[in-house]
């Protein structure tokens, strides 16, 4: 092997070891647990091997929960794109020498406790909260406020994951040659056509990377739906959590975790090589 290969691998070894021992090995154990038999004692998961956990996980009773989780995750990704793209583009294109400051300003709110922010939204969306009061001035208020709705969950998730969309989008926008937009206008393209045929392909790696960073983690989140959602707020993540935290059913929780991992791998394969240089 060449010297370059050796050098690169030497530099990567500490990271590889750390991730191998503390991430890959645990994930492999989860796969193993998912084929074990449930044990309510200390052992949690025991022999013999069985596929019972997967049969339970794929039970139609869980379908509404999977569906809800998927809707939350997709809606969150779309909302993050709609908010994140104008922001990233604006900072990259018009930020001038304040670009770094503006980018840092996107991250500052995240230096407060995540739970405190979620509770702030809870207070703002409350029936007596600020949002409902302001909307009341123009007659758009809603009895009981906006808390405990699906919209509140998507809003909370969008708030939590927005920086993960903005950062890769910004990187892509910064690399984008803005003269192409002028060129496109000069060649007679309209705004929509310029956006879809010049801008979007140009920043597509960023869109892909950002969506990846939002979609799957949002599908696993359970704290936000728990705090902002309505009566039945179970999601994929909260079902997994229940199986482990109560010591309820480790094989079932593992099987569901494996299903989420399959989703991760599928998305990574779909991403292919295109998003690689941004992520």
């Amino acid at each position: 092997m060449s010297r370059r290969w050796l050098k690169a691998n030497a530099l990567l070894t500490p990271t590889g070891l750390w991730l191998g021992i503390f991430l890959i090995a645990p994930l492999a154990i989860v796969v193993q647990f998912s084929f074990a038999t449930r044990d309510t004692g200390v052992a949690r998961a025991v022999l013999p091997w069985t596929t019972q956990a997967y049969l339970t996980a794929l039970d139609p009773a869980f379908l509404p929960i999977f569906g809800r989780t998927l809707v939350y995750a997709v809606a969150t990704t779309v909302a993050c794109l709609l908010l994140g793209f104008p922001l990233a583009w604006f900072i990259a294109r018009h930020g001038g020498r304040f670009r770094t400051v503006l980018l840092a300003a996107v991250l500052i709110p995240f230096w407060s406790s995540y739970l405190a922010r979620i509770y702030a939204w809870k207070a703002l969306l409350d029936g007596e909260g600020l949002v409902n009061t302001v909307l009341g001035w123009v007659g758009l208020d809603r009895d009981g406020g906006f808390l405990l709705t699906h919209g509140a969950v998507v809003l909370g998730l969008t708030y939590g994951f927005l920086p993960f969309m903005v950062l890769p989008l910004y990187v892509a926008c910064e690399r984008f040659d803005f003269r192409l937009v002028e060129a496109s206008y000069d060649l007679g393209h309209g705004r929509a056509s310029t956006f879809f045929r010049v801008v979007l392909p140009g920043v597509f790696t960023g869109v892909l990377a950002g969506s990846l960073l939002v979609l799957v983690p949002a599908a696993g989140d359970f704290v936000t739906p728990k705090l902002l959602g309505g009566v039945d707020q179970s999601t994929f993540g909260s079902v997994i959590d229940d199986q482990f935290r109560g010591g309820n059913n480790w094989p079932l929780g593992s099987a569901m975790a494996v299903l989420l991992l399959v989703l991760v791998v599928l998305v990574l394969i779909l991403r292919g090589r295109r998003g690689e240089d941004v992520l």
Partner: protein
Amino acid sequence: MNRRPWALGAVAALVFLFLYAPIAWLAIASFNSSRSLSRISGLSTQWYAELAGDTRVLDSLRLTLQLALASAAISTVIGTLAAFGLRRAFPGRGLWTVLLSLPLVVPEVVMGVAMLGFFVKIAGIPLGFGALLFAHVAFSLSFVVVVVRSRVSGMDVRMEEAAADLGASPFVAFRTVTLPLVAPAVVAGAAFAFLLSFDDVVISSYLTGVGSTTLPVFVYAQASKRGISPEIVALSTLMVAATALLLIIGVVIASWRARKAGSVAQLA
């Protein structure tokens, strides 16, 4: 799109409003005289006073800070090495990239339960500070690599070659040319790693041991029983204020140095 920057600017301003509204509300509520977060009934600084006297919160804050600093230090060092390792193409780089993107996309709950199972049943690592540190580095590392790598890959190799041509040893070239160029990204990566560790609820909640409860886990346990306490709101406000202040100081220093460099350039 760039013919109407004001329209785009207005959208960007609205997004900033969305980002800052809850923070502003937290700051206001931290001075509330009642416990409520939704209704402001009067001004008081009692929650800040109670925060200063609450040893349970302060103890877990200290533990959380120690953990976040240790995790950020380890992830920054080995993550920066990895970012340099990925600088040039070599067979197998694609595989490394896939490995490094895993912590970014695997949901926290999956990582949490996996680590719980592994630490408790296989590795025999007791839950507590050690387990938390192993886990936090594992999920922060990739963020450091991504941030530093974006800077490293955009760097001009000729700068280092010029240093070598001028007689600098590899170490001197690295210290005087390469390091100053990547320093901003390393600092950003370290800040990212610190923040991820400092604010983590889900993964930490599986791995805390007796007497090693991190602040977010403590707050979560408390909040699910009786809502979030006003002291935590006060603490969050202080954190944001401190960060904003640091950023402002940084901007002032940077613009002062730029002006100084500009006047020197004019003299020459």
